[in-house]
């Protein structure tokens, strides 16, 4: 396999969005590196689903190790635990992600997770979904700075500042998914189902159109005007996860927030410093994940109105 610097150089020469099918070997290496880099860290989204069969307990994050592996012409990643060699993955559909020849003990338990992203791209293609590399995302996460002392990925601020929701919605409306790390693997790629994507395409198209219209006269938005699009992006990300495909509670908040963009209640070119991240963001995301909110849409509208009020309240420039 190439050196990390060589991979970074080759990756940087790609277009912004590159289907796995157009550069399968490079894509396999980049995706493997992205997954490998996260294993055992705070950004490892596989860890909490890996359990030891003997104890029934979740494997400790610290015990998880990973290495890049090769099989035939494929590059992949091998993940194992120093705590146990009899594991179970408590994530539905994840067995499809594991190479059957290398991942299992004789008794059918999981010995290690051996994953080949290029092969996975062929499996998702059967569902009509195309795996892609996204250059800016990968340069920020895989090849970017990661400070282990911070409890959040630097990428979260980057996603806010760079209006990531626009690109994410653009991909999903076209049946594309990025595979660059553990989140993509377990949250989006695992369990992808073609019959659920028609609605998801429509939702992503609505988000894409509304964000582009909102910013049509603004080339350099401030963070204050990016909060609502960012919130929309988190909700759309949830909707693009197989366990929450078609969620009515998410759809309710999505419609309400898109409406805020259409009305430009927060001006798209609001040139202000925001002094506080709005507290209602957390409440909206938490409630969007509770099915019961659909019985109380008025409550959802109140929260969205309060989000907007908070953005304007914590802006140093007041909207007249």
């Amino acid at each position, binding site marked *: 396999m190439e050196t990390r610097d060589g991979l970074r150089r080759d990756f940087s020469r790609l277009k912004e969005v590159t289907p796995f099918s157009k550069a399968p070997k490079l894509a396999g290496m980049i995706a493997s590196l992205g997954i490998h880099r996260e294993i055992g860290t705070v*950004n490892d989204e596989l860890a909490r689903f890996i359990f030891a069969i003997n104890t029934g307990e979740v494997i400790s994050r610290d015990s998880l190790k990973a290495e890049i592996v090769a099989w035939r012409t494929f590059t992949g990643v091998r993940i194992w635990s120093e705590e146990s060699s009899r594991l179970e993955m408590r994530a539905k559909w994840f067995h*499809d992600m594991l190479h059957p020849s290398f991942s299992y003990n004789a008794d059918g338990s999981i010995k290690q997770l051996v994953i080949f992203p290029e092969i996975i791209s062929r*499996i998702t293609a059967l569902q009509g979904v195309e795996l892609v590399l996204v250059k800016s995302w990968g340069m920020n996460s895989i090849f970017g700075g990661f400070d282990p002392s911070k409890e959040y*990925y630097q990428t979260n601020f980057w996603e806010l500042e760079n209006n990531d929701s626009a690109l994410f919605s653009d991909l999903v409306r076209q049946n594309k998914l990025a595979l660059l790390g553990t989140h993509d693997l377990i949250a989006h790629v695992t369990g992808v189902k073609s019959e659920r994507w028609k609605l998801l395409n429509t939702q992503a198209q609505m988000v894409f159109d509304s964000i582009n219209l909102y910013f049509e006269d603004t080339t*350099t938005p401030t963070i204050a005007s990016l909060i609502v699009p960012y919130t929309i992006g988190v909700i759309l990300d949830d909707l693009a996860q197989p366990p929450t495909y078609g969620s009515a509670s998410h759809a309710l908040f999505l419609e309400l927030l898109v409406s805020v963009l259409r009305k430009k209640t927060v001006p798209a070119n609001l040139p202000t410093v925001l002094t506080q991240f709005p507290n209602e963001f957390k409440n909206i995301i938490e409630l969007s994940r509770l099915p019961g909110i659909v019985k109380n849409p008025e409550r959802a509208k109140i929260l969205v109105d309060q989000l907007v009020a908070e953005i304007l309240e914590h802006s140093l420039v007041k909207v007249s």
Partner: protein
Amino acid sequence: MANNKEKQVTQKKKVALAGLNLLALASTLFNYNVEVDSKVNSDSKENQVAKINASTLKSIESTWLRVPMSCKAKGFNAEPTALVGERPSNAALAVYQSLI
């Protein structure tokens, strides 16, 4: 504890003042209530927005950190579930088999 609070308030005031200084400069470049003047130098406007955003990110970092990880963009909205008898799908197995 009181000293820490005073320090936090002072720090917040410093950030707010820094922001106001930026805005005083920014307001000479564009006004959000009217059409953006096409004669405005777009590079300069980008620089001003970059400075405003840098100030915002510093200002909101402490409140951002209080947002639970589960609400951040890259969260997987599912809980571990013990599965009985789950195996790879036939479609996936066929793909792996074709490569052996």
